[in-house]
């Protein structure tokens, strides 16, 4: 009996026009492995995977972890570009594994996957994010007002005032920018792009009243002046934030003290 359900299943089994029978291709993942409980050396390990080019690097890592080697260690939570936990260095560029499609990074050659640089590697692709979050905390990423009383009405803001810092509200604290910065690689004392982006988000917020304080913090020896305008951060940001521009705006605000 030909029910609509059966028809549908039959149709789903057919390859789409223009595609070969199986969309799967063989991809090599070259993963940087480090396990301090086994060796002091980090080494490359290759994995052969059958992947649909429309799948993501995270799917490949899942296949390795679930089917090939359960000891592979990496962070991921949302798997949809929101939580910011799976920033890694893929083919030499910082990206979110969950937002990087296999077809976009040349699956003909081995795909290299490494931990992000400039932070202590704990195991495989997992790094110690503490210095990164310390810099984040240091810029006081929360609303500060001089009025210590509980507000009695909503803090209103015009659309233009909101627009002023819209770009920097999009940050998901993935550390792709900070760990792509060559200044940070060598000198983790530098606040790094992400901390400056999150300071920018409040410095240019008309409701916030501690902009001056945050500017003073970023006027530090390891603050915005260490930025060398390399633009690695802007290229790395999976949220498309114009990171270097935000840093430049903080520099300008420090020189003119207008924000």
């Amino acid at each position, binding site marked *: 009996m030909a029910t609509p359900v059966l028809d549908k299943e039959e149709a789903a089994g057919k390859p789409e026009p223009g595609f070969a029978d199986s969309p799967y291709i063989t991809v090599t993942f070259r993963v940087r492995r480090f396990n301090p409980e086994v060796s002091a050396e980090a080494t490359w390990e290759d994995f052969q995977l059958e992947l649909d080019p429309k799948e993501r690097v995270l799917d490949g890592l899942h296949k390795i972890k679930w089917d090939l080697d359960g000891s592979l260690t990496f962070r991921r939570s949302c798997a949809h570009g929101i939580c910011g936990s799976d920033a890694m260095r893929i083919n030499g560029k910082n990206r979110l594994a969950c937002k990087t499609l296999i077809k976009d990074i040349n699956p003909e050659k081995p795909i290299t996957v490494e931990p992000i640089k400039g932070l202590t590697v704990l195991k495989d692709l997992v790094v110690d994010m503490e210095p990164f979050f310390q810099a984040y905390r240091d810029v006081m990423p929360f609303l500060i007002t001089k009025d210590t009383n509980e507000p009695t009405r909503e803090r209103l803001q015009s659309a233009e005032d909101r627009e002023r810092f819209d770009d920097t509200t999009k940050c998901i604290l993935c550390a792709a920018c900070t760990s792509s910065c060559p200044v940070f690689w060598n000198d983790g004392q530098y606040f790094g792009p992400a901390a400056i982006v999150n300071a920018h988000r409040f410095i240019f917020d008309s409701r916030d009243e501690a902009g001056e304080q945050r500017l003073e913090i970023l006027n*530090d020896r390891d603050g915005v002046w260490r930025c060398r305008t390399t633009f690695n951060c802007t290229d790395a940001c999976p949220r498309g934030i114009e990171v270097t521009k935000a840093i430049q705006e903080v520099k300008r605000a420090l020189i003119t003290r207008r924000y």
Partner: protein
Amino acid sequence: MSTTETTASGVGPVEGAPVYTVDNPAPLIEAPRKRTKKSPKSTRGNFELAAWLFMRLSGIVLVILVIGHLLIQLVLDGGVSKIGFAFVAGRWASPWWQVWDLLMLWLAMLHGANGLRTVINDYAERASSRMWLKALLYTATVWTILLGTLVIFTFDPNIR
């Protein structure tokens, strides 16, 4: 447990005793100069701001000074072949070229030294290597500026 047995680390007896185990892990791959809770050493003052602005402003002035200098010395009026003691003596007889060269010396030296200071800050990891490299840089800078200034002002065209 005997050390020759296969352990959780997966290193079998053939390779001998595993060097690193769960209880004795290898050192982590540390990042140089990590940020800690104590990191913001609250460096008050606007020195870095001033240094950053100086690089841009001196750069603009240097474009004019250096291109002018190169044109006069190497391109116009016969190029390098004209340069000799007499040519230098003739130019430094005029306060205009004295001030030009003095300005170029000071700006280029301070600009270059501050640029190298940035490079040291970016690349040197250990506190002691940072200190020594900067000490060397500042000594060389001060020495060159003083010597150059002395020559510009005490140049004697009748030395021969």
